[in-house]
């Protein structure tokens, strides 16, 4: 079986790269919700292969073909992303795509804590603003399959779980009642936060995980990284546990001319928490439904209470 897998990679990579290649043993990396990630080198070139996982594809995530197309559009637009190599229709029975494997740290807890990444953390707020401005400038015509993601979509997801969660309902109620004036939608990453970016000693190396890309109010993408869960324990630094929001917002506004106001960040930070609180429940459902049995997924159903507490905290601050 292992030998077969290696052979399958050999064939697939030769096809994508257009030449015979000498490959290393493919290694399945940890993590990845609906897709596998394999690290493999071809003639010494560092590659990462995203391959469909068993089981149902998540609602509202992009297919591999579309995710690759977004990655290609971002790469062409000069966004720091892994270089896309190409699509594989059949890699040992499942579809996949191949991209560059960037070097650096992605584990959120390490990004916010490691002493050797201190200079990186100082540089990251402006770098994150600059890359996001580039993402938001990608012409929507370039990725015509992307759809919008209304707040109502979160309600549908919560209803699918079919558990009572009054704190989440309160958050959704507040979001409905206090919607800021809508901004024209832009191409959005959809999961823009520490943990989904590659970081080295100099700072931002590249943006990963494009499967939640969609069209949305730019302030939403801009605020998702403020969600407390994505500060990885460094709660005092509101921007992803790495720095302050103000320089990040100022740089983003300077580059885009969008003039996003701090109140919009507050609103979308709450929305990000509501989304993640529901995300915890849907992850636990993958375990409970038998789709993907795992203690890690199961416990998220309970740890979602942390996010619900943060929702209450933010609502209190907002004067609900």
């Amino acid at each position, binding site marked *: 079986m292992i030998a077969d897998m290696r052979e399958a990679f050999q064939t697939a990579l030769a096809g994508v790269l257009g030449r015979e290649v000498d490959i290393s043993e493919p290694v399945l990396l940890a993590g990845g919700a609906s897709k596998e990630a394999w690290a493999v080198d071809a003639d010494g070139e560092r590659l990462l292969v995203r391959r469909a996982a068993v089981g149902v594809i998540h609602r509202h995530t992009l297919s591999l073909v579309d995710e690759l197309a977004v990655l290609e559009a971002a790469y062409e637009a000069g966004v720091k992303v892994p270089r896309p190599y190409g699509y594989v229709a059949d890699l040992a029975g499942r579809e996949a795509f191949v991209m560059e494997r960037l070097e650096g740290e992605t584990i959120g807890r390490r990004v916010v804590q490691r002493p050797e990444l201190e200079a990186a953390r100082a540089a990251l707020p402006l770098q994150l603003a600059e890359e996001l401005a580039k993402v938001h400038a990608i012409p929507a015509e370039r990725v015509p399959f992307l759809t919008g993601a209304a707040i109502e979509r979160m309600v549908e997801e919560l209803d699918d779980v079919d558990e009572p969660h*009054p*704190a989440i*309902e*309160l958050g959704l*109620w507040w979001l409905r009642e206090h919607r800021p004036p809508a901004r024209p939608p832009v191409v959005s990453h959809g999961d823009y936060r520490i943990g989904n970016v590659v970081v080295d000693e100099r700072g931002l190396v590249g943006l990963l995980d494009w499967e939640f890309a969609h069209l949305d109010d730019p302030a939403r993408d801009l605020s998702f990284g403020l969600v407390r869960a994505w500060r990885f324990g460094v709660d005092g630094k509101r921007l992803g546990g790495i720095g302050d929001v103000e320089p990040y917002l100022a740089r983003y506004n300077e580059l885009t001319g969008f003039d996003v106001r701090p109140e919009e960040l507050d609103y979308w930070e709450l929305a990000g928490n509501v989304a993640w609180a529901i995300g915890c429940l849907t992850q636990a459902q993958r375990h409970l439904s038998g789709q993907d049995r*795992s203690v890690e997924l199961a416990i998220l159903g309970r740890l979602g*209470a942390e996010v*619900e507490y943060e929702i*209450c905290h933010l609502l*209190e601050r907002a004067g609900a």
Partner: protein
Amino acid sequence: MSDRPTAQELTEAIQEFLGGEILPTVTDHRLRFRLLVAMNALGIVYRELAALPAEDDEGQRALSRRIRAGDVPPGTLDRVKADVEARLLVASPRYLERYG
């Protein structure tokens, strides 16, 4: 409280993890024996939890429906927050220390 996974479901997840992923890797005889004893103990917990009556979450469902309908009288947030805090004291008590 009606949280999912329930204590019984969590116990089941741990049993599957220990039996499916850990047990096959344990070669030390003494450790293997103790792991089997621990799994046996977990089985007792599982069956004991199975014998408990199911929790009633109708109160939470009714409150959720009211909020969804936009019926949010003063004091709702306080009540909801107190509920979440009680759940956190079970699920992740140290988390509350982060709100000084």
